[in-house]
């Protein structure tokens, strides 16, 4: 896949980092404001997709396998499952028990496990959607080679 014109490239340079930071903000504030892991993860994947579309797959060295994103995706859902399993080991013996201290509602570090769940779901969603897009790009280049 070829890159786009110099206007698109320059705009992408300015915007991609801000989109990435906005995705992280949406994920981290998931328990305070609307949004959360799913929406923020898709925004994170969107910044990478913008980079790939603007600069082309040659510039990004995308001719290799899509190994990195699949590993992140599987590790993230494994961590999500393990965090849920810790509820069984803690006092209540309940799956998905929120046994960390809740703190003051409304602060950034509060609500026990919920920010951690949001972070891992965000990583998982971002890696999944990026993997699907990479599969469409890479497998076509493999055939054309």
């Amino acid at each position: 896949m070829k890159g786009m014109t110099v206007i698109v490239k320059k705009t992408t340079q300015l915007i991609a980092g801000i989109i990435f930071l906005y995705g992280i903000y949406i994920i981290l504030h998931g328990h305070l404001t609307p949004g959360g892991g799913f929406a923020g993860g898709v925004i994170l994947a969107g910044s990478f997709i913008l980079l790939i579309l603007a600069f082309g797959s040659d510039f990004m060295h995308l001719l290799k396998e899509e190994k990195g994103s699949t590993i992140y995706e599987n590790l993230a859902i494994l961590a999500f499952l393990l965090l849920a399993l810790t509820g069984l080991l803690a006092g209540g013996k309940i799956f998905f028990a929120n046994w960390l201290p809740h703190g003051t509602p409304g602060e950034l570090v509060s609500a026990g496990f919920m920010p951690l769940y949001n972070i891992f779901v965000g990583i998982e969603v971002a890696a999944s959607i990026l993997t699907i897009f990479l599969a469409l790009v890479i497998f076509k280049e493999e055939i054309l080679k």
Partner: protein
Amino acid sequence: MELAISVIVGFMILGALYAIHARDILSAVIAGGIVGYSLVICFLLLKAPDLAIVQIVVETITLIIMVAVVLDSSRVEAYGKFDSRAWVTAGTAVLILAILFWFLKEASAHLAPFGENTMRMADAYVNGAVDRTGSVNLVTGVIFDFRGYDTLGEATVLVTAVLGVLTILRLRGKKV
């Protein structure tokens, strides 16, 4: 409010009809985007910002991927002939539609009005959720605490979808 939602739903139906009948696949994909973005406005009018954010970002990414796929392949739709088998299919579809509409009419006669008479569980979620979960955003409190299994299932569905895409789209075998 109900008038605005009715108008937007009318736009969605028009977009979907155009997407079905368009000869050019690229314009069909763009017309399909009308449905998604109108749904975003519906969610905002119904005061569901969480759903609206998820819907607008997912719709954008989906549209980009679909446009990329269409631009890489053909834009012309392959039309088949309308033979006797197509008549059987169309007749079955109309029959099932009629049955579904009849059941909808029967069922909606006994339903509560839209937005009223919430369930007992919903009251328990809304009234005590901040104290019990510690999360100010009630939606996150519900999907990660009361409905944790649901979220785990959704994440698993995403992983399974990626596995399916990687399995089906890979045309050349992998060297071990």
